[in-house]
């Protein structure tokens, strides 16, 4: 029997995973405003036999308390546009765009993804999100986001309606090569997991270690089977960032050097955004202003209190807390070591049932992606765990799913 294959997705929003990544000498912060950059990274992903490139998205400007950060890279150009342009310069790699069900109509979604699906020759994917940031609502004429359960209920209706519209587009022609785009989801909450189990063909998640990966994948496979779907028809793709080196020590030193590019001001801007409250006027050497945060945050206060209370009790200064917070972004697996160690780790996760593959989040762009493609991809291929050519032309074929899915959600 063939060894378990590892699927690779590339999450390429922004200039890299670390907030300080854009300052790295091999990062190209001006490039993300040029087609040359997107052509280069799309071809790199194809060279690395990635299933797909994914862009995340938000529908609000970054920042907190009305202040735009000065030190955080924020070139959130529209993902559908970037990915469709990348389709024009590639042949195989899939293109997965994050788009909200709360702030788009089914008609808008169906036309946008239907056109992307046709012009890419069947390589479109939709990362379905319901939008969780409260600053989004005023950009669409509303005061507040709908409550979470309502957003998910609505998302289900929107996806079903969009599928009907794709079915109609497909009948009218030209054909949608996959019938509809591949449906992708990243919900973490019980609502999100149930929605993913019913709807998604690929799922992202954070999993800081192999046990967390096994837990998540087992839980999702149980939920998928419970709604009558085949768990083997869904790819589970936890996030993975990395810093590579010739030795483990070298990788750790490089990781520290990237983190050290960030000063207190960047760390506090990052924390401000994460807490939904502008803290840039506070003294980094002073105490964490917990009362102010809980008074002003636009995010759920209980969650925020849980995040800051332990540090407050230890008397950690604001600047130190912010720096620590920034060093562990979003609960993802950050691998530090040699390319051989990384390939071993990836194979171990796959064999343990912790994932079907990984969503690579390079630490800085494009250097981090280049290193992975040049140094880790060949090792995975030598060990028979990664394809050396694409099996077909559509994203479904690349994922090993049936070529055309019945158009239901």
């Amino acid at each position, binding site marked *: 029997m063939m060894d378990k294959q590892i699927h690779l997705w590339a999450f390429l929003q922004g200039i890299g995973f670390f907030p300080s990544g854009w300052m790295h000498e091999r990062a190209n912060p001006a490039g993300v405003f040029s087609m040359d950059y997107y052509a280069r990274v799309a071809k790199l992903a194809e060279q690395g036999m990635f299933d797909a490139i994914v862009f995340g998205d938000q529908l609000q400007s970054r920042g907190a308390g009305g202040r735009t*950060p000065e030190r955080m890279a924020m070139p959130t150009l529209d993902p559908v546009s970037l990915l469709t342009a990348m389709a024009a310069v590639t042949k195989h790699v899939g293109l997965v765009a994050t788009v909200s069900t709360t702030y788009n109509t089914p008609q808008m979604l169906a036309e946008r993804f239907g056109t992307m699906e046709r012009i890419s020759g069947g390589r479109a994917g939709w990362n379905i999100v319901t939008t969780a940031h409260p600053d989004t609502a005023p950009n669409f004429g509303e005061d507040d986001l709908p409550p979470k359960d309502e957003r998910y209920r609505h998302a289900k209706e929107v996806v079903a309606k969009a599928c009907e519209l794709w079915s109609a587009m497909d009948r009218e022609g030209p054909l949608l090569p996959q019938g509809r785009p591949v449906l992708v989801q990243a919900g973490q909450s019980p609502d999100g997991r149930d929605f993913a189990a019913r709807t998604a063909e690929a799922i992202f998640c954070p999993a800081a270690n192999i046990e967390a990966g096994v837990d998540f994948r087992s839980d999702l496979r149980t939920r998928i089977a419970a709604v009558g779907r085949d768990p083997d028809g869904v790819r589970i793709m936890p996030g993975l960032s990395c810093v590579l080196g010739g030795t483990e020590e070298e990788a750790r030193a490089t990781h520290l050097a990237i983190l050290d590019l960030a000063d207190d001001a960047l760390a506090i801007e990052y924390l401000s955004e994460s807490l939904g409250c502008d803290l840039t006027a506070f003294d980094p050497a002073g105490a964490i202003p917990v009362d102010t945060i809980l008074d002003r945050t636009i995010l759920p206060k209980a969650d925020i209190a849980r995040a800051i209370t332990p540090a407050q009790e230890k008397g950690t200064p604001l600047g130190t807390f912010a720096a620590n917070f920034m060093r562990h972004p979003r609960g993802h697996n950050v691998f530090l070591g040699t390319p051989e160690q990384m390939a071993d780790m990836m194979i171990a996760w796959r064999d343990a049932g912790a994932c079907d593959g990984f969503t690579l989040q390079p630490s800085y762009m494009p250097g981090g992606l280049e290193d992975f493609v040049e140094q880790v991809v060949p090792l995975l291929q030598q060990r028979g765990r990664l394809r050396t050519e694409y099996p077909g032309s559509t994203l479904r074929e690349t994922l090993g799913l049936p070529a055309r899915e019945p158009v239901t959600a």
Partner: protein
Amino acid sequence: MTRPFILSASIAEAAFAVPESAAPILRAAEAAGLDLLVMGRSGARPFDAQVLLAWAAPLTSRLGLVATVPASNAHPFHVARALSAIDFLSAGRTGWSVVSEGAPQGMGEDMVGAARALWDGWGSDTLILDKASGRYLDASKVSVSNYEGAFFKVVGPVNAMRPPLGHPLLVVDGDAPLAVADADIALFADGQAVPSASKRLLKVAPDADLAETVARFEAGEIDGLHFTLTEALSQLPLIGARFGALVSARSAESGDLRARLGLPIPSTASNQPGGAVIPENA
């Protein structure tokens, strides 16, 4: 600068939405010397034109890419972001034409006002991108828009950069006119009221008379021609053969469409004279 003669065409063939058809049509449009290719038109949009613009951007170098945007099936926050991205990907070759069919009166104009307000929320010189100091941008150049129209209320700032053109070219069509005083380009047919715009393109068939066209251009009555394509692959070479000489002096141009066509952003339309500048030292 010599007043440029402008060649434009619109395409609304469903077949344009697949790569095997679209790629040769784009090549033919560039070979014919077209300045603008308008994707979709009022009442005929068998595709999402903004998506096709993004696909066309890396496959073309001089063609202006104009998206027909239906006011009733789009939101200015999304439109402002998509056109900003495409304007970067095409290095300043983007335009848009808002059509109002099926939309309540005033919605198209509201769409234009809202998207312009979002683009104007970012200064031309916002980006710093200085790795040494760690300053990515100058936050004082980013502001909320607080746009409130009859149909769209958008606070902003939008999470997209001001486009390289500042605002993509606004194209208005005499068939579905917008009450916008400061559009960049108007398309009109003989006998039709000409919408207000900086440049006026006459709608004609591919076999229109060359001598008469030149006379009307030299008299200042028109700034160029617009063709409604129905069989793009056969019509584009005919257009190139008949009218290509009028644009051939500019055939080596690429990039910034406002500079090439002599169309600065109207001061009534924007709070800034130009588009976004990406620092070169980054």
